[in-house]
Every structure is written in structure tokens, then in C-alpha cells.
């Protein structure tokens, strides 16, 4: 278990371990006097592959509210041009994790490193490289869009000379070109969300963090925001939180699933797809046999009856009962009319994930955090 401490100064002691592996210093803005790299870091669980550049590295983040551990030892690594989905049911700790990564909340334990700059040691330098859209966009309703974006730019220390350009560019990317003179309070929710995104990208940050960016939008707006996020992913690193599984599949390169504050799954999208698809089949039969007969046929897979004539077959990894079911249906005249990989809802994925004792490969192993303790 990682040591839990609230004091950022005490936390400094763990920095040697907390700072992730050697970060490639491609960026000239990285200060020369950044932390010396100690040998033990090479044993860190996170890899130190040189390319592409690692923009964000969070290690062993934990956050305690009283006795409740809202986020428990969450680690995350992001490379330039990567979009990572942070998935989880409500209350899984997504927002808390994001707040810690953006410096809005001090972690009880762990460290965050943005482009080689430690967030606790040099908060202002690190924050300058992060763009953050919180769950509720932080909009001043009494300002006009242009005024607000100029304010956001100035707060992010953009020089006066490039401010106007930055505002224009952010507006163009967020699809707000004609909205400059509108009062933010009079915009629709979708446009307010866009202003929130424009605010997060105005200073061209290395890491963009979006907390549920598509909640409450209509399907058209969702599509537009998604394509914007994909476009952002070309130049920035993006972390995106959501509780909608298809959204992650549509946009993200990798996915991390949080459950009760813990990372229960971390893999590329393909891994998630395999995890979902290979495990559950929905079988619809016109003349269904007894549940027991079906169970015996597809063992060791488990069978549940969803409704009359509709069964769900949950197979362990490596087993594919599709052929068996097809053949049996023909031979025994069950009248199979539908056989499809069940669209496991995100909740079902969670149930599967949290049921297993040994979580699927790809979850950061515990050695890193034990070293920190």
C-alpha cells in the first residue's frame, strides 16, 4: 500500500520513486535542474520506452476523504498524441483522479509529472501545460465568449501579442467562430460545453483533460465534440472521462476502467473489445430446451436465461461455444434465429472485472506502489 500522507512536503521524500522513469527531454522548455534520476526508478513498473514523448505520468495517486478511499493507487501514463479513456460508473473516482492530475486537489499520496515537471514541486510550471475541462464548465456567464477566452488565455500567461490569435484558433477548433460576441449565459448547453473546451485548449497545452465532455448534449453535438476530441488527439495528449462505453470505443486509443477508486482494467481498446466480445453470447431460440440441457452442452461456459427463449452464454476466456450452439440447434431443432455477441453494458464489464480475483493483464502491477510504501 502506498504511504498515505497529505503533506506535500513529506511527500517530497517519495519523489525519487514517484517520479516516473527517465522522461525523454525532447522539449526544450524542460528545466535543466529537474530531479536527478535515481537508479531505482528503472525498476518502476511503468515502462520507459523512449518514443513518443511521455506527456503525463501519474504514479500511485490516492485520495482519502475521511475513512473513504475515493481514489486508490491509480497510475496513468500518457504519450503525445494518445487519447486515453477513463471509464467508470458514477462515483468511481474519475473526477477525483482528474482533479488531482490538474492540481485542483492535492493527492493524499502519489505524484503527477507533466512533461517532466513535478506538479507538487512546480505547480505553476506544470499547470501551464495542462488544459482542463471540469464536469461543470467553469464559465463566467456574465462575460462574452471573446472576453472569457481572452481571460482564460491571460490566466494561462499567453503573451499579449499572441492572445488574439489564440482566441481565434480556439474558437475555430471548438466551432465557436460566430459566437464571439454572445454572452456565455445566453448560449445553449452544447455551446457552453464548447466554450469550456475552447478554454481548455486556448494555451495549446500538452495534456488536455476532459471530464465527461459529452454529457447532456444532443446526438449531433456529441458527434461534433467527439470529432473535435479526435482532432485534439493528433497534437495533444487527451484524457477523457465518461461512463459511456461506446464513446470510449469510438474515440480512445487506450482505456482505464476505475471501480471503487481502483484501476480494474487498463489496456488498448482492442483488449477491451476482446474482453467484451469473447465472453458473452446472446442466443435466441424459437423452441428452447431446458436451461440444464443448454448448460451441459456449452460447459464450462455458464448459461443464464434472459427471457423466454433468450439465453446468455458467458464463456471463460479461450472458449468459443458458437459452433457447438449452431450444431446443437440444427440437430435438436431448437429453431435458432439469433446468435450475437452480447453487447455487454459497462456495468456488466465491471461486474466481470470486479468478480475476478486476478484482474486481466495490463493492470499496473503492485511492485511500483510497494516500493513507494
Amino acid at each position, binding site marked *: 500500500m502506498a504511504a498515505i500522507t*497529505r503533506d506535500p512536503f513529506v511527500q517530497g521524500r517519495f519523489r525519487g520513486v514517484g517520479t516516473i522513469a527517465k522522461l525523454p527531454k525532447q522539449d526544450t522548455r524542460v528545466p535543466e535542474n529537474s530531479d536527478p534520476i535515481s537508479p531505482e526508478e528503472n525498476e518502476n513498473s511503468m515502462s520507459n520506452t523512449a518514443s513518443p514523448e511521455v506527456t503525463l505520468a501519474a504514479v500511485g495517486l490516492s485520495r482519502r476523504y475521511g475513512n473513504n478511499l475515493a481514489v486508490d493507487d491509480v497510475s496513468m501514463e500518457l504519450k503525445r498524441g494518445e487519447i486515453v479513456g477513463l471509464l467508470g460508473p458514477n462515483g468511481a473516482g474519475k473526477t477525483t483522479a482528474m482533479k488531482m492530475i490538474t492540481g*485542483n486537489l492535492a493527492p493524499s499520496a502519489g505524484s503527477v509529472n507533466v512533461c517532466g515537471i513535478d506538479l507538487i514541486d512546480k505547480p*505553476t510550471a506544470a*499547470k501551464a501545460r495542462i488544459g482542463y475541462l471540469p464536469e461543470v464548465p467553469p*464559465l463566467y456567464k456574465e462575460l462574452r465568449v471573446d472576453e472569457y477566452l481572452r481571460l482564460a488565455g491571460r*490566466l494561462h500567461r499567453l503573451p499579449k501579442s499572441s492572445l488574439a490569435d489564440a482566441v481565434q484558433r480556439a474558437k475555430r477548433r471548438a466551432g465557436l467562430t460566430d459566437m464571439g460576441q454572445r454572452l456565455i449565459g445566453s448560449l445553449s448547453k452544447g455551446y457552453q460545453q464548447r466554450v469550456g473546451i475552447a478554454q481548455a485548449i486556448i494555451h495549446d497545452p500538452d495534456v488536455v483533460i476532459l471530464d465527461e465532455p459529452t454529457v447532456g448534449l444532443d446526438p449531433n453535438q456529441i458527434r461534433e465534440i467527439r470529432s473535435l476530441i479526435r482532432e485534439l488527439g493528433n497534437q495533444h495528449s487527451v484524457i477523457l472521462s465518461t461512463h459511456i462505453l461506446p464513446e470510449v470505443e469510438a474515440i480512445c486509443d487506450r482505456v482505464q476502467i476505475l471501480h471503487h477508486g481502483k484501476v480494474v482494467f487498463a489496456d488498448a481498446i482492442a483488449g477491451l473489445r476482446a474482453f467484451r466480445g469473447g465472453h458473452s453470447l446472446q442466443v435466441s431460440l424459437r423452441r428452447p430446451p431446458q436451461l440444464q440441457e443448454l448448460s451441459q452442452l456449452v460447459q464450462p461456459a455458464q448459461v443464464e436465461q434472459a427471457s423466454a427463449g433468450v439465453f446468455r452464454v458467458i464463456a471463460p476466456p479461450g472458449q468459443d461455444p458458437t459452433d457447438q450452439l449452431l450444431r446443437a440447434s440444427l440437430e435438436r431443432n431448437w429453431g435458432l434465429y439469433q446468435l450475437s455477441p452480447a453487447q455487454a453494458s459497462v456495468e456488466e464489464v465491471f461486474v466481470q472485472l470486479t468478480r475476478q480475483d486476478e484482474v486481466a493483464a495490463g493492470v499496473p502491477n503492485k511492485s511500483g506502489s510497494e516500493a513507494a510504501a
Partner: protein
Amino acid sequence: MIFTIAAKELRSMFASPLAWVVLAFMQFVLALIFLKQIDGFLQVQAQLARTPNAPGLTEIAIVPMFGVGSMLLLMSIPLLTMRLVSEERRNQTMALLMSAPISMTQIIIGKFVAMVAFLALINLLILAMALSLLAGGTIDLGLLIANLIGLTLLGCSFAAIGLFISCLTTHPVVAAILSLAVFLALWIINAAATDPQSALHLISLLKRFEGFLNGTIAITDLVFFALLTVTFLVLSIRRLDSDRLHA
């Protein structure tokens, strides 16, 4: 960076009618007092001329304006400071400031500077009225400056305390009422002590402010107001920082 935040606060202040109403209300009441005092002065002018050590135009027409001005500040500053932080919390806009590369100190000082700018505007209006007397008479500029310094320091202390109280709550109205209660308590706390040696006299804002009204700029009073302001600004910064640590 501080001025960016201050400019934003002023813009928000004047975007709502509240700041305008406060300014108009203050100007109206102060102008009434001013007129009444000048009127009184003109009536007793002949007698005053014969009395040795009689109060002059400045004492009669300008000082009461500052006296009433202090009461008006006491009532109106809670309305202006109430939303400084509490509204940002309520609308969850604090995240914009918190995730920008700026420190808590800059945020608080920026908001405080906005309040000071507003106070300067009020002072300017009062000063303009006072200086208008120069058109037809002479005024005691030293006394006027002492009064101005006094009102400014008092306003800064109120602003700092109000800002801190705004940091404590997410409800602007609660912050306003709490601030008003604290200001009033500090104002008349010396009334609770009949003993002139009592420590309560030391922290009474009224007692401290009276010195300036009489034209005395005492170092102790200057230090008192400065300390009061700085203390509450530091407390505000700490309070905002603890949001990040414990919220």
C-alpha cells in the same frame, strides 16, 4: 496576473446592477449630507467668525461626509465582497483559476485589488465633492487627506474581512450577513467596555477611525489597519489552499 484577475472582478462587479446601485446610493446619501452641512455652515458663518478656535468649513462640511461614508462602507462592502469567492464556488468556476498557472496568493490579491479599485472610485467621488468647495472658499487640505487615508484604510480592512468571510461559504447571502455582523461588532465593540483602559478599545474600528476624522494620522492606527488587512488576506489564502488539500 493579479491585474488580470482584478480586471475580471471589476468587470463582473459592473456587469451586475449591484455595483451601480451601491455607487448611486452612496453618492446620493453623501451629497445630501454635504448639502445639509454646507447649508448649516452658511447659516452660522457669522457667529463662527466671532468665536475663537471655531470649527472651519472643512470640519463642518467635509468631515461629517467621511463619518457617514464610513457607515455606508460598513453597509455596502458586504454586498460587494459576498460574491468574490462564494459565487465562484457555487458556480464551480474556481476550477478555471485553480487549474491555471497562478497561485492562491495571486487569486486572493487580485480579488482584493478589485475591491480597492472600487473603494478608490468611492473616495474619488467624495474627494470631488470636497474639492468643489475650493471654488468658493478654502479648505484644510491636511484634514481632508487624513480623512481620505482613514476611509481608505477602513475600507481595505472591511474588504479583507469580507473577502475572507466569502471564502468560508458557498452562499453569497450568508457571506454578506456574516460580514455585516462582524463589521458592526468590530465597529461598536468599545461600547461594551466602560473602562477606558480596556483592550476592547484597541480593536474598535470606530475608535481607530475617529482619530483620522480629527485629522490625526497615528502610526499605531496605520499599523492596526494594515495588520488587520494583511491578516485577513493571509487567512483567505490559507482557506483557499485548504480547499485544495481537504475538500
